[in-house]
């Protein structure tokens, strides 16, 4: 990384004329080699540094950003942020900028990933493609380095360099498709060829898919599917704003048993098996937060603003979002569902007995946040489970489920947790993922039937 985020952040602060200030600098160097029909079609190399400045004057807050990091650009940034602050209305109860606190040391940076250049990215994409020459490969290999620095006039000096790499493959032709993906911050955590093989193997079992009648089914969800569902549920359910505004499932239900006692969910950005983070976007240390413990709703994540608004002794848990997303309140970026006691997918299927098997979900929509109702489609590997074994392939299915209801009766959870990338790489790169096991549920409500897998 040629640009030093810390040095840029310090220069930003020096450009501010009056008031408190907090500067975020996020520098990215990444490559994404995207392929379709086993041919690279959208290869993208990105280098950028985005500087975001929050200025507080007399309790009024304004934010500006730029990627012009010369002195002129930063001086103009400071002026625009000050003008934005002067235009705002003083926020009653604003807790001010945080004082500096010791930050945890975390993993999350691997020099071997940082060293992956464009030719290596192309080589890894080629490995995923060539892992299965008999079927079209669609997906990408990406790796990147993200350097994040936050400094403030209150003395915060937070910095972290992060690496991440992901391979994602859909193997598909007319009438069959399979999916696999791996994400890691370390080079050893992603094997593109194995991802390519897994997707192709799955695709090979989906031909001649059958249909089924819409109804509630017992089901096994692979980590890919379960992670997607939990992330969507978490957008509303696990942030403080949803609780305070009485629009989330957890509003009025804290302390109640809302799920099977096998289910425990946390947000844990410190876990080295995830994509670790030292601090949030206010420079506050990340904390592990227990959200669901043995089925009981225990809490949500907070930032300083939401904690101050709650006014009943709550404190930040280190979950402030990026400044331009601050209106959405604190967010979970590192959900983790505890693993269970089931050693294999095969055993989960045995626990289900008769039901369906879901590899991946598509295009989720939140139907009713208050009841945790989400709809979406299954995709790239849906099967019938008969007599405790994966049986014939099924067409893509529409589901409409209340997530808490789906988790009320959980016959089993896989022992192994898998890191599933939850970033689609919109905007600036900030790698996030969820650590989840495969799960067996007694109720997965199928409400419609879609098309056969494949192109």
């Amino acid at each position: 990384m040629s640009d030093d985020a810390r040095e840029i952040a310090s220069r930003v602060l020096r450009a501010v004329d009056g008031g408190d200030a907090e500067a975020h600098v996020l520098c990215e160097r990444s490559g994404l080699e995207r392929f379709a029909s086993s041919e690279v079609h959208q290869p993208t190399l990105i280098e950028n540094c985005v500087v975001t400045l929050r200025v507080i004057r007399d309790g009024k807050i304004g934010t500006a950003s730029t990627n012009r990091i010369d002195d002129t650009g930063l001086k103009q940034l400071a002026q625009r942020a000050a003008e934005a602050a002067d235009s705002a209305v003083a926020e009653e109860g604003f807790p001010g900028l945080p004082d500096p606190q010791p930050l945890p040391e975390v993993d999350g940076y691997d020099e071997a990933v940082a060293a992956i250049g464009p030719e290596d990215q192309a080589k890894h994409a080629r490995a995923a493609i060539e892992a299965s020459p008999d079927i079209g490969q669609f997906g990408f290999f990406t790796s990147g380095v993200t350097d994040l620095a936050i400094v403030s006039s209150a003395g915060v000096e937070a910095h972290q360099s992060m690496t991440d790499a992901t391979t994602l493959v859909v193997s598909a032709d007319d009438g069959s498709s399979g999916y696999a993906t791996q994400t890691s911050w370390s080079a050893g955590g992603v094997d593109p060829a194995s991802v390519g093989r897994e997707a192709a193997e799955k695709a090979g079992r989906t031909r001649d898919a059958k249909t089924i009648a819409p109804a509630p089914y017992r089901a096994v969800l692979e980590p890919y599917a379960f992670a997607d569902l939990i992330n969507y549920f978490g957008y509303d359910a696990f942030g403080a704003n949803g609780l305070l505004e009485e629009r989330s499932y957890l509003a009025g239900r804290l302390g109640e048993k809302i799920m099977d006692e096998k289910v425990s969910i946390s947000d844990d950005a410190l876990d080295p098996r995830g994509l670790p983070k030292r601090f949030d976007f206010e420079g506050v240390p990340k904390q592990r937060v227990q959200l669901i413990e043995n089925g009981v709703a225990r809490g949500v994540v907070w930032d300083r603003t939401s904690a101050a608004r709650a006014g009943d002794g709550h404190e930040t848990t280190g979950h402030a979002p990026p400044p331009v997303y601050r209106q959405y309140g604190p967010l979970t970026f590192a959900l983790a569902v505890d693993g269970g006691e089931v050693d294999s997918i095969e055993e989960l299927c045995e626990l289900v007995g008769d039901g369906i098997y879901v590899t991946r979900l598509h295009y989720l929509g939140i139907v009713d946040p208050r009841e945790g109702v989400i709809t979406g489609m299954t995709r790239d590997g849906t099967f019938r489970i008969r007599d405790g074994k994966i049986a014939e392939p099924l067409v893509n299915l529409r589901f409409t489920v209340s997530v808490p209801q789906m988790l009320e009766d959980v016959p089993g959870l896989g022992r192994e947790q898998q890191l599933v990338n939850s970033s689609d790489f919109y905007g600036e790169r900030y790698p996030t993922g969820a650590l989840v096991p495969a799960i067996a549920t007694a109720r997965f409500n199928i409400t419609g039937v879609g098309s056969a897998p494949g192109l």
Partner: protein
Amino acid sequence: MDAALGAGATYADARAVVRRSQAVATKNGRVENVTDLETEGIGVRVLVGGAWGFACDRRLVAEGARDAALRACAFALAAAGRGAKGLAPPAATSGTYRTPVEKDPFTVSLSEKVDLCVRAEEALRHPDVKVTEAFVRAQRENKVLVTSDGAEIEQEVVETGGGIDALAAGDGGFQMRSYPSAHGGSSAQGGWEYVENLGLEREAPRVAEQAAALLRADVCPPGVTTVVIDAEQMELQVHESVGHPIELDRVYGSEASYAGTSFLKPGDLGSLRYGSDKMNITADSTTPGGLGTFGFDDEGVPARREPIVVEGVLRNFLTSRETAERLGAGEGGSMRADGWNRMPLIRMTNLHLEPGEGSFEDLLADVDDGIYLETNKSWSIDDKRLNFQFGTQIAWEITKGKLGRMLRDATYTGITPKFWGSLDAVAGPEAWHLQGLTNCGKGQPGQGAHVSHGASPCRFRGVQVGVKA
């Protein structure tokens, strides 16, 4: 361009982009967000030995441009899999485009924007409304495109938008109403006059009252019935079940790993029955005020208006120069990139359902027993754009041609061609309405697109409503 061609590119294009945007949001009487963002840089796309490459640089100087071009060429040379690629003939050589603006939104101070939000939000106050929100936005993008075909194009696109939300909660329930649209209001190409004419303050009391009333409304009952759908929800229906499937890159599988493919095949052109003969869809990148309006797309192809579905039959796809050449039909014209650091992709321009005849009341008059659905609440559609399910913020019973009791938590679901085949009436031009959305996602790395749709309220027969968890 010189650097790319010197490094072996057989085709290259370069876009220098400067984008500035402002956003203001207030919530429950507090100013939640006052932001002033800018970003600039250059993106270079090259074709080397039959493989694409793209790289970008934030430095808008010659060194940054050269570096981006050379890295793009090196990336293309390293790519796996390459086949001969043709591009439909270039149409443009030079040109300019500027959004017509009466009142430059960047001459309107942030203080005035804050005041507008505060006033609108105050008008949303209601005892049952727990959260009130108002927001406005403005964006200006200056873009210069040069291509190795000789195009030199300069464009300035200005967008503005705004909206209000009222969230009512009580007795364990939660309901929301929005204006002029859900999920971030509505935007248009144009000056600040668009925001002023939205009438956010004027509409706020109705929005709040309806949000509160929904708390006490009955749930939409399940069943198969006649539905009348308002223009706004129809615009999302067009977007999801027509706009995305007709993107030719999806038809060819380019989006298979993320956004998905399409139920349409190249051979469907000219013959596939998409819907009833009441269904007429037009792609129009010249629509005044449309977010998908431009002088030239990001390959330099001039803006145009072209029929997509005529009396229910598929007549055109949305194309790039590469996919048009592959299909042997079309000329491109739909390539758009999200800023300087993303590759152009086939994106919707402005896609409209052409008006029919008669009024909204005429649509209701021919319904003995049905449901009227208004304002999107949730949306989901499968990877081939066939099986969809939408929820709306509010609904009403239709009984003997008149609106009856209010209903909450309404959903409807269907299969795209069957659903459009059940279209039996589209209201006329007086009820036609243009709306701009700013949250359309596609591509890896992800790209957002801004697009407008026009539609009138429509009536469909035999639709499944009231899907339950």
